[in-house]
């Protein structure tokens, strides 16, 4: 386990001043989105995010690097921007009951499992059910099978992920935080699926 991607750059102080904090400005062109990460500990939730945040090489991007809260803005082809505010959660069993505090009000939930661990896949399904019961009704959910680089140790078939996601109306993707495979695609796909505020 562990992230093989490089460490976050500690010097990248936050440039976003008060403007970005202004009452959660989200207009049709610039969305600000709360994204919550759920999944067993050790599946690589944090690594996916670090890879995503570090993988963007736009030096002007306003990146906040904490150890557990990160944000990243991406530009879409239709010239809209989406700022993801990524809320990590603690994956250990003993903190499971605290998750609602984190996913309350989230527009996106990314549920992560490890393709080499059937237990983590079962846990992912638990989170999906939780979110269906207690999350916002219009929450966008993604199911992510991480550690795709460890294909030789795979224990959760791709098809199982696809089937489960389809049944539950989720977007599905397999990623590797280690090789950065599909990491950007994951967030771009999520961005496309976000409900847009009416551009009046």
């Amino acid at each position, binding site marked *: 386990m562990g992230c093989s991607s490089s460490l976050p750059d500690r010097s990248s102080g*936050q440039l976003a*001043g008060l*403007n970005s904090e202004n009452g959660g400005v989200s207009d049709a062109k610039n969305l600000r989105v709360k994204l919550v990460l759920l999944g067993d500990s*050790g599946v690589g939730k944090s690594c996916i995010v670090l890879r995503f945040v570090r993988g963007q090489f736009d030096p002007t991007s306003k990146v906040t*690097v904490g150890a557990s809260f990160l944000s990243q803005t991406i530009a879409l082809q239709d010239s809209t921007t989406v700022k993801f505010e990524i809320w990590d*959660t603690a994956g250990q069993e*003993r*903190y499971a009951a*605290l998750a609602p505090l984190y996913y309350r009000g989230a527009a996106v939930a990314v549920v992560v499992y490890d393709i080499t661990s059937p237990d983590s896949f079962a846990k992912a399904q638990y989170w999906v059910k939780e979110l269906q019961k207690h999350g916002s009704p219009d929450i966008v959910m993604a199911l992510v099978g991480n550690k795709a680089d460890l294909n030789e140790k795979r224990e959760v078939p791709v098809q199982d992920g696809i089937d489960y996601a389809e049944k539950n109306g989720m977007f599905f993707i397999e990623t590797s935080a280690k090789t950065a495979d599909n990491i950007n695609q994951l967030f771009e796909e999520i961005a496309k699926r976000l409900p847009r505020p009416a551009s009046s």
Partner: protein
Amino acid sequence: MEAAPSSSSTSTSTSTSSGGSVTFYDFLDRMRNPASLDLVRSIKSFIVSFSFYTPNPDNDGKKVQDFYLSMEAAIREHPLWAAATFEELDSAMEGLEKYVMTKLFSRTFASVPEDAKIDREVSEKICLLQTFLKPEHLDIPAVLHNEASWLLAEKELQKINTFKAPREKLLCIMNCCRVINNLLLNASMSENHALAGLDDFLPVLIYVTIKASSPCFCWYMYDESRPCPFCSKNANPPQLHSNLKFIQLYRRQAKLVSEAAYYFTNLVSAKTFIVDLNGKSLSMDEIKFEESMQAARLTQTNRATQIEASPTLQGQTDPTLTRMHDKEKDTSGGSSYPYMDAEAGELTVGDVERLLSLYKDVVTKYTSLYKVVRHLSMSKTEIPHSEGTSFLLTQPEGTNTKIDHQRGN
């Protein structure tokens, strides 16, 4: 006026920390300008209006938030802020929040008995836990065992009670979390410990919260508004529940977002974990957990009863003394020293022996205390002495427990 908490101690984001007291003085200056008389009137009448109602936290919170919004609109339209940038408007609003909530603090903080009760329950639970909880019980990895960092984080969190403005209280939480974040980042760099996000962060925050919230058990009666000069803990443990609720209700809603909201949520989460904590929540044998909790409860009860029952420091229970003590229990202050209210004429020869023993006891305690205090003043520790309640009592530890009980009633 209190100084704003500093937020420059770490390298991570400072999105919520734009200039503290400077902007506040700027706000006060503008409010002194005759042109802002209408604003000043609105603010004053709003503050006064609170004295007409009994506290109701949810309603009060809504009223304050609505007031912020209407004042924001008024300031935006105001000639004094005609050419103001967004930042200037924002700092005016920060000033307004600080002014209003400092004025309304005693009326809004822990304003209903239910909140005080929850605070007491949380701190009682923490008192028990801190007697035996170890980092291992929360599976904090060894590379994150860093007493210096933890202590720093505790100190940041403890500052929360020294501020009245919601923004500054929130900053204390942010600063505490930044210290922990830095610990995690440092461990990942120097120890090659993989960054595990909240999996690592939350256990440390919970541990720090418990340590930061343990009250002082020294038996020195000090000024309760300041940290104990001996152990630097607070007489009043941080009112975790009330502080969180206060920030939630009275911090400008537009500011309790993003990173600030995230770290705020983490402390809420730590508090919730502590409240619900049972034998299954820790990496610890369930039976051992129950035993440890029971032992901690007993120690606390002993602390409280020792002081009630035993007139001497060593607890030598002279039956006659205890009887005497019981008889006089209702005379306040005289409970430990039964002759305090006695007249010379009432004394008999039989009292001499007891009086002598009490005298020796008092002198022994006084001299040892005097030595300690002298030693401390020589090492330049500030000791608030002989002002009001700041008074040296020759009583064993447990004094605080007693105070807590009184406060609880």
